[in-house]
C-alpha cells in the first residue's frame, strides 16, 4: 500500500472548488469597503509630537471606575489590534467592566524622530501621559496595562515611578529574552546592531515584517493564503481577514536609538535578567515595582513563549502577583472569541478588586 491516493477526477474536482472559491472571493475583495481600524468611539485628549493619547467613551449604562486605566502598546505594529472589530475588541471588553480606558498611540516615527531614546519614550512621553491623566482625575496614581514591548515599557516605567502606578497588568510581556527556542533572540546575537542603526537611521517597518514572517515563513507567507480561500465566499470573513492583514503589515519604522538600546540591552544582553539596563538616570531594578501585578501570557505564543514571561514573578518586588495563562497565541489573546469571554473580563475583575 502507498500513502497517497489522489485520483485525477478527485483532483480535478478539488481544483474546481478552489477556483470557484477564488472567483467568488475576487468578487468579495472587489466589493470590500475601505478597511477600518479601531471600532470603539474615542477622542484625543493629549498630543505631543507624533504621540496621541486617546480616551475611550464609556458605554451607556456603565459607571466608570474611579481609577483610570492607561494602555501602553508596543512600538512595533499598531494599537488598533486591541480594538480590531466590533465582536473582537479587548478595549470594548475592558470598557464593559467599568474601566475608564486611555490608550497611547505612538504614531509613525520618521527621520526627525531618529534620536528618540528609551528615556524619551518612558521618562518623557509615557510619564507626561501619566501626569496628564493623574491631573485630569485628581489622582496620585493610575492603573497601567502594558502589551508585549509595551509591557516591558510598563514594567520599567513602574520600577522608576512606582508612586504613579496603582496596579499594573502586563500582557504577553517578555522579561527573559533568551529562553530556549527564542528565534528572534537567536537571530539578533550575531547582528551588528550599531552598524545597522548607524546605516539605516530608523529601522524600517519592512525589516520588522520580514523578521516576523521569518518566524514561520511557510505558514505565514504561504499556507495562510491557501486557508483563506476556504472563507473567501463569506464577505464578512474576507473583511476580517483583510483587517488582520492590514494590521500585520502596518509596521511603523522604529526610532533608531530606541531600537539600538532595546535590541542590545534586551535581546543581546537579556538586561532584565542579568541587570545593567539604564534608562536616563535610572538603573532598572524590577524589585522597585511593588504594586499589585497581573501577568497575562499565552500558552501557544511563538513570539513571547510562556517561559519568557513567567520569570517576572521572581524579578519584581510585588507581593500581590497573579498569573493568567491563556490557551492561545500572541494575537489570539486579543482577537479570539475565547479571549473576549475569558481574558478581558478577568483583567477587569482583577482591577476592580484593587481599585
Amino acid at each position, binding site marked *: 500500500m502507498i500513502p497517497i491516493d489522489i485520483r485525477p*477526477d478527485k483532483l*480535478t474536482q478539488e*481544483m474546481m472548488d*478552489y477556483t*470557484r472559491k477564488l472567483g467568488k472571493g475576487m468578487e468579495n*475583495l472587489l466589493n470590500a469597503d475601505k478597511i477600518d481600524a479601531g471600532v470603539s468611539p474615542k477622542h484625543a485628549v493629549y498630543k505631543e509630537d507624533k504621540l496621541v493619547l486617546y480616551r475611550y467613551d464609556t458605554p451607556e449604562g456603565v459607571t466608570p471606575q474611579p481609577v483610570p486605566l492607561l494602555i501602553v502598546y508596543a512600538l512595533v505594529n499598531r494599537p488598533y489590534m486591541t480594538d480590531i472589530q466590533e465582536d473582537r475588541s479587548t478595549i470594548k471588553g475592558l470598557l464593559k467592566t467599568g474601566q475608564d480606558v486611555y490608550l497611547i498611540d505612538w504614531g509613525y516615527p520618521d527621520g526627525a524622530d531618529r534620536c528618540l531614546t528609551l528615556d524619551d519614550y518612558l521618562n518623557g512621553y509615557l510619564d507626561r501621559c501619566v501626569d496628564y491623566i493623574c491631573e485630569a482625575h485628581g489622582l496620585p496614581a493610575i492603573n497601567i496595562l502594558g502589551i508585549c514591548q509595551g509591557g516591558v515599557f510598563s514594567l520599567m516605567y513602574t520600577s522608576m515611578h512606582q508612586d504613579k502606578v496603582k496596579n499594573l497588568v502586563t500582557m504577553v510581556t517578555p522579561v527573559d529574552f533568551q529562553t530556549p527556542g527564542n528565534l528572534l533572540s537567536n537571530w539578533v546575537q550575531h547582528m551588528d546592531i*550599531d552598524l545597522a542603526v548607524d546605516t539605516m*537611521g530608523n529601522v524600517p517597518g519592512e525589516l520588522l515584517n520580514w523578521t516576523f514572517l521569518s518566524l514561520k515563513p511557510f505558514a505565514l507567507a*504561504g499556507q495562510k493564503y491557501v486557508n483563506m480561500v476556504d472563507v473567501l465566499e463569506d464577505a464578512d470573513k474576507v473583511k476580517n481577514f483583510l483587517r488582520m492583514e492590514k494590521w500585520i503589515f502596518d509596521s511603523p519604522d522604529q526610532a533608531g536609538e530606541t531600537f539600538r538600546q532595546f535590541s542590545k540591552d534586551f535581546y543581546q544582553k537579556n538586561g532584565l535578567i542579568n541587570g545593567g539596563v539604564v534608562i536616563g538616570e535610572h538603573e532598572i531594578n524590577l524589585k522597585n515595582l511593588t504594586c499589585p501585578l497581573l501577568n497575562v501570557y499565552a500558552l501557544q505564543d511563538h513570539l513571547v513563549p510562556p517561559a519568557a514571561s513567567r520569570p517576572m514573578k521572581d524579578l519584581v518586588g510585588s507581593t500581590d502577583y497573579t498569573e493568567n495563562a491563556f490557551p492561545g497565541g500572541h494575537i489570539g489573546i486579543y482577537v479570539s472569541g475565547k479571549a473576549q469571554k475569558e481574558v478581558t473580563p478577568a483583567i477587569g475583575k482583577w482591577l476592580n478588586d484593587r481599585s
Partner: protein
Amino acid sequence: MNEDSFFSNDWMETQRKYWDSWIAMNRKAMGQEGGSHTAPWESALDHWWTAISPAAPGASKQFMERMMDQGKAFFKMAETFLPSAGGDTDAWSALSKSLEEMQKGFAGSFGGAGEGQTALHRMLAFWELPYDNWQRMASSMSPVPGDFLRNMPHDGMQEHVDRLLSAPGLGYTREEQGAYQDLMRRNLDYQKALQEYAGFYSKLGVKAVERMRAYMQDLIKSGKTIDSARAIYDDWVNCCEAVYAEEVGTTAYAEIHGKLVNAQMALKQRMAIMVDEQLGGMNMPTRSEIRTLQERVHEGRRENKRLARELKALKAQVEALVSGQPAAPAVGTPRAALIAGPAAAAPKPPAAVKPVSK
C-alpha cells in the same frame, strides 16, 4: 462573475485528461521530467487573472496573487506525486523517485534557477518563501527596484574583481578609486553572505524532503492515506516548518543570518557615504549634515521639555508660598528636585549623543 466564465467544463475536462496522460506517461518512463508541460488549469487561471487583475485594487490584487501562487504550488505538489497514485506495485518506488527528484531540485534551486525549468520548479519555489521574503525586504530598502545585487554575476567575476581591488589607487582621484574599491569589496562580501544564506535553505529543503519521506513511511505503517492535494500540501508545510524551526534556532544559522544582515548594512553604508559625497559636491544637504542637525534639535527639544516641567513645578511652589498653603508636589515634578529645592531642579547637561560612525 460566474464560475462558468472562469473555468468552463471544457477547461476542467482538458485538465482531467492532462493528468490522465501525465500518469500514463510517468508509468511508462518512471521519473521522467515533464517540464515543458503547462497544466491547462494553470493556463486558464493566468488567462483569467490577466483579464481581471487591472480592475482589482492594489491590496486585493496582491492578496489574490498570493492565493493564486499558493494554489499553483499546492496543485503542483499533488502533480508531483500523481505518478505514485493508482495502486501500482512499484508505487513506493515511484514515490521515492518523486522525493529524490525533489531533493535533486533543492540542490540547485536557490539563487537563480530558471523559471519553468522543471515541473518541480514551482513547488520548489515554495521553499524560496523565506529567501524571497528577504529579496522583497532588501528591495524595499534599496534605491533601485528589486534586490539588484541578487543576480549580479559573482563566481566567474571573483578572481577578476580580486585583482582589480588589489590594485592601489593612483593620482588625483586616488580617494575616489579607494571608495569604489571598498564598495566592490563590500558588494562581494554581500554576495558571499547571500550565497551562504541560499545554500542553507537548499540544505533545509533536502532535509524537509527527508522529513516528508519519513512521514509517509509512518503513514504506511498506520495504514492511512493522503487523498487530496490540500492534505499533501498541508503535510508538506508541516514538514517544512518543523525542519525550519529546528535549523534556524541553531548557532550556525544565527551566524549566517548575522553575516547576511551585516554585509548588507555595510554595503548600504558605503553607498550612503558615496551618495553624500556626490550631494556635497553639488552643494546640497547631505545625510550626515541632516543627522547632525537632527541630533542638535533633539537635544534642544529635550532640554526645553525638561525646563518646562521644572518651571511648572516651581510655579506650583511659588503659588503655594503666596497662598500660604503647604506646597503640594505637582504631578510630574521630579521628587528629588522638590525636596532639594530649585537648585536641584537645574537642568542637567545634555547626555552625550552617540556619534554616527562611518
